[in-house]
């Protein structure tokens, strides 16, 4: 059972690695917008546009 003295610190270091990865993701801005991404999944089966926006007729 003395293996616990080795395994537990390793487990905690691994958990720490996970937390570090989370820090990295937060600082990359991956959690900045929590509202928009959930909608993007809805758009997969929406047909894509066919035309383009033409230049304005009266360009002042």
């Amino acid at each position, binding site marked *: 059972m003395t293996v616990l003295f080795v395994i537990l610190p390793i487990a905690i270091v691994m958990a720490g690695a996970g937390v570090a990865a989370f820090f990295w993701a937060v600082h990359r801005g991956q959690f900045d917008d929590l509202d928009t991404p959930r909608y993007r999944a809805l758009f997969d089966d929406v047909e894509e546009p066919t035309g383009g*926006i033409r230049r304005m007729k009266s360009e002042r």
Partner: protein
Amino acid sequence: MTIAAERFSTTLRVEEACCAHCGLPVPAGLIEPSAEHQFCCAGCDAVFQTLHSCGLEAYYRLRELGDVAPRAARPTESAFQSFDSPTFHGLYVQERPDGLCCADLALEGITCAACVWLVERLPRVLDGVIEARLSLREATVRVTWDRRKLPLSRVGQALDRLGYTPHPARDELAREIHRREARRRMIHLGVAGAIMGNTMLLALALYAGSYGQMEEQYRMFFRWLSAGLASISLAWPGSTFFRSAWAALRMRTTNLDVPISLALLVGGVAGLVNVVLNRGEIYFDSLTVLTFLLLVGRFIQYRQQRWADDAVGLLFNLTPSSCRVVRGDEVIEVPVEALHERDVIEVRAGELFPADGVVREGKSTVNQALLTGESMPTPILAGDSVHAGAQNVGSVVRVVVEKIGRDTRVGKLVGLIERGVLEKPKIQQFADRVGGIFTVVVSIIAAAVFAFWCRHSLALAIDHTVALLIVTCPCVLGLATPLALAMAIGGLARRDILVKSGAALERLSGRGRLMLDKTGTLTEGRLRMIEWVGDESWKPLVNEIERNSNHPVGRALFEATPGVAGILPPPVLRGRVGERAVEGRGRATEPPPQPSPGIPGEGENAVRDVIERGDGGLSAVWQKKDIFIGSPIFVSRKGITPSQSINEAIERFENSGLTAIVLAVAGQTVAAAGLGDRVRHDSRRSVQVLRQSGWQPQILSGDAREVAKKVAEQVGIDDAAARGALSPEQKLSIVTERKTKDVTVMVGDGVNDAAALAAADVGIAVHGGAEASLSAADVYIARPGLEPLVELVHTSRRTMRVIRRNLAVSLGYNVLAAAAAAAGWMTPLHAAILMPISSVSVLALTVVGIAGRRGTRFFSKQERVGV
């Protein structure tokens, strides 16, 4: 075809026409019976055409998925030239190493998932745009494009034509600060969560071990590990509570963080001591769970409040940042900050005056409703003075700038507002008041328990007191209160009611004085035709003549009369689109000069020579007859004496505060129209409901006293409670005179209300309000009418009911737990089981109590639409 359009084509009743783009009702004057699609304004029509020509119709299908308030599209049709200037590029555009450019643009009109889809299709419909990423929350799109292929102004035009007018995202610094704050909270949450999970695993082993045999060395090891992890959790994410509690104690007040900090601190220190001395219980699992759950509650509330703040901040962004200065022969666009006294500026129809000044060239009409509360637009000529913030509704004028920035009339009002905000009494929030009582009660019980057990043994006394302090920690309140407030604020935001603080909701749940502004709050804030006297069949003629008028009277007549041909009007000026005018009560009191006026149209019947006379009316020629439309004075100046019935109508209109307009054909008056600022259809009902729920409504108006009384009568407010002709200072002093401890709520939209909004216990700015009133208010209602106010009051009541019920339930748990702890039955395992159960049950109650009835609208659909 959209659902709205389908409904129209099956029933084809003029009253039911809904805009094919936005779904709002179509004004009678804009209905084209022959056309397939009906539009409430030219803007919606233009966007509809653009979407169809690009194959973007799926937008309408996506929009049906969400419950979004309809909103008319208002493309500006500007060329967005300023987007290409070097100054703009220097400020807002980042050049990437690969040669592409990147810019953030704030968009008007972002509401739902369909907007995300539409905006992010930009690269597909505009060659040269590489990527468009929309943030729904900030209503900001990050555009990446190739500047060798197209200038940013083309991107601006394209977004504008999709119905989202772009503006530079100006508050980059503020957004960066908020982003950092949100990231910091997210990291705290992550750390607290990870430590909670690991500590619970260790605790599980310890609990299991305490029933079986666990060798002493492993027990020690596990306890030390838990202590280490929990110390990190308490010292890093947990410091939030300690700081807040310390700040409150230094101010000699209390808040909910004081009892929380007490529990965390005592539990943490006692646990550490016990680990070091290798005796007694440790509570690290419960403490880390506490930290995590409390942070979750705070995070949710923070996000929800930021949302409301962002949404209001976005409205600030939309005020014009540039104006046109005349330099020699050319007119150039400059930022408002670059304006100097004695500059000559050009202000086009629909724009706001950027500074105080005197008109040099041109004549027009200005709408000062937001500044002074006057409902009637005032005509201006060369030599008249105009004020910053007023809207030019007529035609182009050139103005010599006299005062800028803080020296303008609006600038001085802003000073008043700032004073109002400073003098606003701070009301302690409910949870913090409870927190104070909590601290006192828990301390007394803890002292009693300690004293009682001291007689047996000191170690036992410490153990039981620590157990008591931890189990009585108001975790449930600390988690459930922010959650309840956040859910209520979020639900309201979805209904276009933006609440800036939870405290505002709390105060609205009480009862007290309700001060209502008149223009734009109780009334619609724009001119409308209220009554029509004369043969109905004259209306198409009026419609035809007023078709191109920019004058507010002309627009009101045009919108209230049915058209005949399929010609679309020019873009409607900035104003509230989509509310339909009451049909005039036609009374054919005298025979018209011709058996039937016939229908104006092509050939013989065409209307010719429409001339805006500028002295109160306009003239035209139709079927070789002279037509005059204008004020009674204008018509009599043309040598026309009104008939008796028309004269009676004019007198009646003027007595009831309406503006009279007369139609004369071939020297005879044939019809009269009464125009005024109509009371909103839901005002009377809302006032009634609000009074029933304990509020005393009063009217504070900047408009004439008689008009204020008239409106009071119409909405059912006592004559004595209606005050008119008030200056902003008088409004402020009425709001601040506090006779009782009652809550004072001020509802208004104008700059003249802003100081009062800031000083009131709760300031509510309503739809279409001025920038100053938005900054001063605690709540912004982005939907017209008073019905949202009723909804707001009822939501706040419900929320506070849920919060009080949470308090009762958690107190019940606490009394049980405290009794068990005092008796010495509370073990760490009991605490670890009791805490999640109490939290989950109270959270469930909160979610059911608030979300369960989120969808209820207060009024029936008929009452809302005003049919």
